[in-house]
């Protein structure tokens, strides 16, 4: 069945309902239960186990937000770098670098910084298809260090980042032969959006970035001889601009402020946010002097973030889905084949399809990507590394009782976001009421049945939504 929406005034994937623009970004003062805590954990991090949800609820709203925005706990002892021996092995280095990055997301104690690092990776989408893994690691570390810092400083640092200088060819950008690649994308994709600059602005910015190159050790170097010292007219201003000036002029543009705030709202709240909501956040962002922590903090504390319209309103990205599933299932390490599954799900980490990054939204969802999500889950529940075992679920449920096991799963995995029909199908599965040979849940079959039920619950539509 396909709905005809030709007369539907709604555009895009914005949730139905209306926005109260006046109060949307005001502080949320409502209740804070398990659903709210799990919602916060999915958006500001990579999801939470039932125990972590309980801990967030116990902290209360302010305490829980504080735990994300200002984590007191020291970061976990994470590998700083993929094994140096592996990085020089052409067959293993890509896989090893991906696992290094995924491992950080699984084990971090600072989930919001890691979640913003992933945001910047998608935003400044750079790929190992062209950039050596060592420099990609350096770039991800840069994103993490500046994840919640000042955007102008981040944009400048990215403009001088060796991986980016290679990825968009600015290392070849010299006064005699300007290379426009970086100049175009900093405006189109990183900071302004199409339609907010002219081809002449691209040419002027390219000239301003001339001489921003790499030395022989792949470090940023300003090559004065290759820099075009002449006057440039860029976004209505004229001067002997360099790259730093271009960055400064860009962030002052109101269109930039709306551009970046719209993207943050689409990442944290819901698709196609109302212009009034974007404008409201853009004002916060501008007033803060481009402070990402203040801007993101405003989102996470807001009424609109905790509104029913934002609840399970976004499809999980494959990385969110994978890491969230691993966390819920109690994995303490990322399985070696996870980069393969992420590629199948449409998010080949550290290898985005183009400088535009992953389209995301509805394009996360295709027959192929959904099957990959399902089959990943089907495989994980049978893994020897599974910590949320049938035995532990039986213990948590207080005995080998289908009803109680089912409730433990749907509460822990889905915060009870399932319809009664779905509950009935899962109950039937555990008790085999509809099978040709009815076999109730028992000691001889609980391993298979509970793993199956766990997979079915995680493969429900609700679990595809963040």
């Amino acid at each position: 069945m396909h709905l005809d929406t030709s007369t539907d005034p709604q555009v895009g994937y914005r949730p139905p309902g209306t926005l109260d623009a006046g109060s949307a970004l005001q502080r949320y003062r409502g209740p804070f239960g398990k659903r709210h805590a799990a919602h916060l954990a999915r958006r500001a991090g990579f999801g939470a186990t039932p125990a972590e949800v309980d801990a967030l609820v116990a902290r209360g709203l302010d305490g829980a937000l504080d735990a994300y925005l200002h984590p007191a706990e020291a970061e976990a002892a994470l590998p700083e770098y993929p094994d140096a021996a592996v990085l020089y092995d052409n067959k293993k280095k890509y896989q090893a670098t991906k696992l290094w990055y995924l491992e950080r997301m699984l084990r971090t104690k600072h989930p919001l910084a890691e979640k913003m690092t992933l945001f910047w990776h998608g935003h400044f989408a750079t790929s190992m298809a062209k950039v050596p893994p060592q420099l990609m690691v350096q770039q991800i570390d840069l994103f993490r260090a500046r994840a919640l810092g000042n955007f102008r400083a981040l944009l400048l640092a990215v403009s001088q980042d060796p991986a980016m200088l290679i990825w968009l060819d600015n290392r070849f950008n010299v006064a005699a032969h300007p290379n426009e690649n970086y100049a175009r994308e900093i405006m189109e994709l990183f900071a302004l959006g199409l339609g907010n600059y002219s081809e002449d602005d691209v040419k002027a910015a390219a000239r301003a970035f001339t001489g921003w190159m790499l030395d022989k050790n792949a470090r940023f170097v300003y090559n004065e001889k290759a820099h075009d010292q002449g006057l440039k007219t860029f976004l209505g201003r004229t001067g002997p601009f360099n790259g730093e000036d271009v960055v400064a002029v860009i962030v002052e543009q109101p269109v930039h402020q709306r551009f970046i705030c719209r993207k943050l709202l689409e990442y944290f709240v819901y698709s196609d946010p109302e212009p009034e909501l974007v404008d409201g956040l853009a004002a916060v962002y501008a007033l803060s002097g481009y402070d990402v922590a203040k801007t993101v903090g405003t989102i996470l504390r807001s009424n609109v973030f905790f509104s029913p319209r934002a609840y399970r309103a976004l499809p999980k990205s494959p990385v969110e889905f994978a890491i969230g599933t691993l966390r819920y299932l109690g994995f303490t390490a990322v399985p070696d084949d996870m980069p393969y599954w992420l590629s199948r799900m449409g998010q080949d980490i550290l290898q985005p399809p183009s400088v535009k990054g992953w389209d995301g939204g509805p394009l996360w969802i295709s027959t192929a990507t959904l099957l990959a999500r399902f089959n990943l889950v089907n495989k994980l529940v049978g893994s020897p590394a599974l910590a949320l075992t049938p035995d532990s679920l039986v213990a948590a449920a207080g005995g080998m009782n289908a009803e109680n096991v089912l409730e433990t799963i749907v509460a822990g995995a889905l915060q009870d976001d399932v319809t009664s029909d779905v509950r009935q199908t899962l109950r039937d599965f555990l008790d085999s009421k509809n099978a040709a040979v009815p076999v109730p849940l028992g000691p001889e079959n609980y391993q298979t049945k509970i793993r199956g039920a766990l997979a079915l619950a995680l493969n429900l539509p609700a679990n595809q939504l963040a």
Partner: protein
Amino acid sequence: MASRRRFISGSLGAVALGGALPGFVREAAFAQALPAAAGTADPANVLVVVQLAGGNDGLNTVIPYSDDAYHKARPTIRVTATNVLKLDDRVGFNPALAPLNELYKDGQVALIHGVGYPNPNRSHFEATQIWETASPTRPVSTGWLGRYLDRLERNPDGTNSFAGVTLGDTVPAALLAQHVDVPAIGALNAFQYNTGKDAASKAAAGTLYDGARPGQSPYLQLIEDTARAALHGGDLLRGKIAGYKTSVVYPGDAFAQQLQLAARIIGSDLGTRIVFVSIGSFDTHAGQRSQQDKLLGFFSKALVAFYKDLAEHGNARRVLTMTFSEFGRRVGENASSGTDHGTAAPLFAIGGGVKGGIYGQQPSLTDLDNGDLKFATDFRSVYATVLERWLGRDAVPIVGDGFPHVPFV
């Protein structure tokens, strides 16, 4: 499908144009399949669309080797006249296209020069959208192939599940339709719900999704519809293609493997009319020769294997393969032995049903628009030709009026 068609509008509004679209143009809904255009198109015909993603440089694909301006504009990356595979006294193929040249000599390759459109866009994203939606001046929510699929007669069971397929993990804009959900088959062995020996779990998954209810988020409907198609489609596909065997050995690269799967699907009674495949990394800003030549080699070797396989099963005449890329590249090389984003470029139509040869005008290398080639043939003329002469559908509601045919089929 309803929820998918929202995507383009939302995405362009939010990301690309930086604001809500004033007066966003919605397309009329087409409730019923329109009658086929009068013509002699064989109803068994298939169209394979090959995307050369990243902006393939046309001038180093089909080389105007006799034009001094070409050699002057590209002192480092030019293909010298002695290396060109000459098609006539003016142009020839890049040597990496040697396998394709064999098909050309057999009269199975049409080369259409200088394909583009007015006011060309040089952004990868926007230009790809333009080519895939066939709408250069305004964003629309369906692709040109999606609009074709919307006009196919429905199967008696109400599904046309494999009429259009994409051999990748995501559905390209070209295949976004209003009423048809196009399966994305990234890899055959991954296109099924896999629970090993646990058949009960697989059966329960079908029940869960068949009984799911739409919820509040517009994404929920999309997920449920897509999941149902995936859960049932995987088994159907595997059953149908299980018996297909070939003696042709394909190259091992990903693109060749996709074409091998395309040949199996086309030859396996799934009612497939459209197959979309993509080969990427043509964005050769630096070090162009090694990169582009490698890719053109993958492309042409895979195509030759594909047509051998098709011929072995008597399908070569009914399969037309057409290439496209979001733009060609600048005439002059840059300082990094590469080329920047440009405009018009040649495209290929390949197959046993093609009238081989050269069509259209090679754009001048000296009469330029801002350093870029002026297009000679509108890409919608190529689409209209394929739609009307090959697929037997009226092109006007799909790509618009006023696009004369290019007589390569």
